[in-house]
């Protein structure tokens, strides 16, 4: 198991290096990054000053070495708009994004797994149809539309929840529910189909025949086995969750990394976009690593492969 964990973390470090290269190239896609970084009203003098200051007059390999050196110190340069180091801006806002993502994930799991189990258990009944249509319509709804509908119903008309912003748990409800829509349908459908597979296995019949209670069969014997692929998917979906966070944070003016990224893209604030790309990618890689380790713990055969 330990060897497996070390190997898995080693792979993650390699992926992070790849991310660093992509982040570096992000700005160089444009022939001359200086034009991306400066507004059109800039004078020739301003353009030349920036080119020198950023080291863009150096050969590409030199620039890359310089970039990696700064990156290892967590230095992406100062934001062009905010008069503050880009990394600091990201870290200030990361807690809000994590709070929202975890809440969204929790709601998705709390809704999707019981529904998935239940739908499989009552296969081809009205309940199953209801759960499946819930998943299909959830998947079909664009989340920004869903978010705005929630605002109109619960905030503007019923006036029971705040429209936007942050600060109290009431503020968290609508954005977290919106974000959970990104995940719940997939997890629910996967849980259902895995449970159906597992429930047809011999050992389930054995468990039933030796008199295990139906609750025990479902949750201890079946769900633990079905959970293996569900956990893998949750890890993979972490990136999707971050994508959903961009939309959700924007709709609800949630003060997280994603709103910062959106306004930084609009402002061509590249240091912030680079820092955010890098840190978010690391989070996604980390989430996947954790998911893999959990799967290995659920199914010891995996780490022995």
């Amino acid at each position, binding site marked *: 198991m330990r060897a497996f964990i070390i190997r898995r973390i080693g792979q993650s470090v390699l992926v992070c290096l790849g991310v660093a290269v992509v982040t570096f190239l992000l700005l160089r896609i444009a022939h001359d990054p200086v034009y991306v970084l400066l507004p059109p009203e800039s004078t020739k003098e301003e353009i030349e000053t920036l080119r020198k200051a950023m080291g863009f007059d150096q050969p590409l390999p030199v620039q890359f070495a310089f970039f990696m050196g700064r990156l290892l110190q967590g230095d992406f340069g100062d934001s062009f708009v905010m008069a503050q180091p880009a990394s600091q801006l990201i870290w200030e806002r990361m807690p809000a994004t994590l709070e929202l993502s975890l809440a969204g994930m929790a709601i998705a799991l709390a809704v999707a797994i019981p529904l998935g189990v239940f739908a499989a258990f009552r296969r081809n009944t009205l309940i199953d149809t209801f759960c499946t249509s819930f998943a299909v319509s959830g998947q079909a709804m664009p989340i920004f539309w869903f978010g705005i509908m929630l605002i109109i119903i619960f905030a503007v008309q019923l*006036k029971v929840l705040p429209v936007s912003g942050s600060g109290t748990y009431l503020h968290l409800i609508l954005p977290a529910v919106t974000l959970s829509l990104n995940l719940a349908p997939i997890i629910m459908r996967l849980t259902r189909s895995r449970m159906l597979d597992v429930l047809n296995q011999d050992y389930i019949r054995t468990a039933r025949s030796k008199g295990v209670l139906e609750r025990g069969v479902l949750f201890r014997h079946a769900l633990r086995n079905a959970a293996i692929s569900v956990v893998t998917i949750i890890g993979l979906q972490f990136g999707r969750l971050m994508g959903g966070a961009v939309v959700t944070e924007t709709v609800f*003016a949630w003060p997280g990394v994603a709103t910062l990224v959106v306004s930084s893209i*609009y402002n061509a604030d590249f240091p912030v976009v680079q820092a955010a790309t890098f840190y978010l990618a690391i989070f996604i890689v980390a989430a996947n690593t954790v998911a893999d380790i959990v799967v290995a713990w659920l199914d010891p055969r995996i780490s022995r492969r």
Partner: protein
Amino acid sequence: MRRFAAGCAPALAALALLLAGWPGASQAAKSDDTVVMALGSPQPTMDPRDHRARVGIIKDWHVYDPILRRDSRTGKVKPALALSVKPVDELTWEVKLRRGVKFHNGESFNAEAVKYTIDSMKDPANKFLNRGNATWVSEVVVKEPYTVHILTKKPFPLVEELLTAILPVPPEHAKKAGKPGMAARAIGTGPYKFVSWKKGVSLVLVRNDDYWGEKPAIKNLVIRPIKESATQIAELLRGGVHVIRQVPPDQAEFINKSGTAVVKSAPVLRVVYLQIDQAGRDSRSHKALRDLRVRRAIAHAVNVDAIIKHILQGRAMRSATGISPLAFGYDDSAKPPKHDPALAKKLLAEAGYPNGFSVTLHTYSGSVMAERQVAEAILADLKQVGIETKIFHFDNVGVYTKMGTGGKRGDLTLASWGSRSIFDAHQILLPIFHSKDPLSYAKVPALDKEIDAGVSTVDAERRKQIYARAQKIILDEMLAVPMYGQHEIVGVNKDLEFEPAGDEILRLYEAKWKR
């Protein structure tokens, strides 16, 4: 994102009807004397010297005072921290300052504060983003405790205009606090005082009861960043936010019918125009555009009045020359090209294109209101006379990238220009029509000469004549199809008395609760 609001309108309206009549009062904060304003992006910094963001300028005008201030109603520049600004000779301007003004930390405002602010702004070592608003100054000389002489590098007609963009900071505090300290906390002389700032969440201000000028009627002011237009509108209807800006024109009627808020608009300096690659400055451009008859045909084909009426719901101001009618130097006597598709077809035939040809049209989001609809309307108008158009749409970033790579964007560009809130024709003529500027598509030596003359002449009457000639050249050569000046469209809570101004700076210190 912002565009999404448009698609939402019918759904919003239907739901509003469906759920109408639900009990519950609006959260109007009249009782605790607090106005909340939502702006489209977060505050970049508290230091007015270190940003060029619109949302930052709006905040600055509440916490700091400009040296001269533009009157929100007349649009004229009037005294603020300066009592008078007069030329002594061609290169020297005498600025007499108001006495007895104090910064919020108790420091006195005086000539030293003005000198320090301008000197620190223009010092390249400080790398302030707003440096451009001070580079016209060659030196600031303190004459008396409340008098400074501002020296310019060459005769410069825009001194008074640019003094509205310089907001003095307290020198003692600024030296002690340094760049990070000034970025984190705002200390000015303005009508509101800084209370707290939670980045990306809210900026809280409170009335400065010792203000030298007319004190604001509203005690507390909160500024919140909300990117999404649909969310801003929802907050406005709920009463959680009292003022929003950049309302999409097609949402105006919906807000007016809500009963919680109304829409107000004011003509602003930003103009929209259709640039034509007259000189073939992009090698990919169609050579037909180098023919004046073809350019005239395009101008006669586009129905600008219909765009204003149907897409902008009348919230725009026709420009005959491509320059904002609000800018100094705009030629009132000029007439815009008439909408005349028959004439356009005739001109095309004369130029040797009886069956038309194909062009590209570039536009971008961020500043041109309803840019997609406007571009599509132009496409339809051009199709009527036989010209096929292919539209390319960018986000703001893309425009810069494209400029960096190719310099130019091809045949036609639907663009806007805000002139950095300087109400003078020079501010658009130089970047958009002078052959030496990277954004310009024009290459007309006679026009370059007029533009150069305009900025080195101080006499107002002579400058007007110069700019009238420049605008005539633009129309004669049809360098751009003149379109319209945009409106600032704001949503305002119905309990609040507030009007937007022509320079896109919302002045909440002028707002009042309705009795």
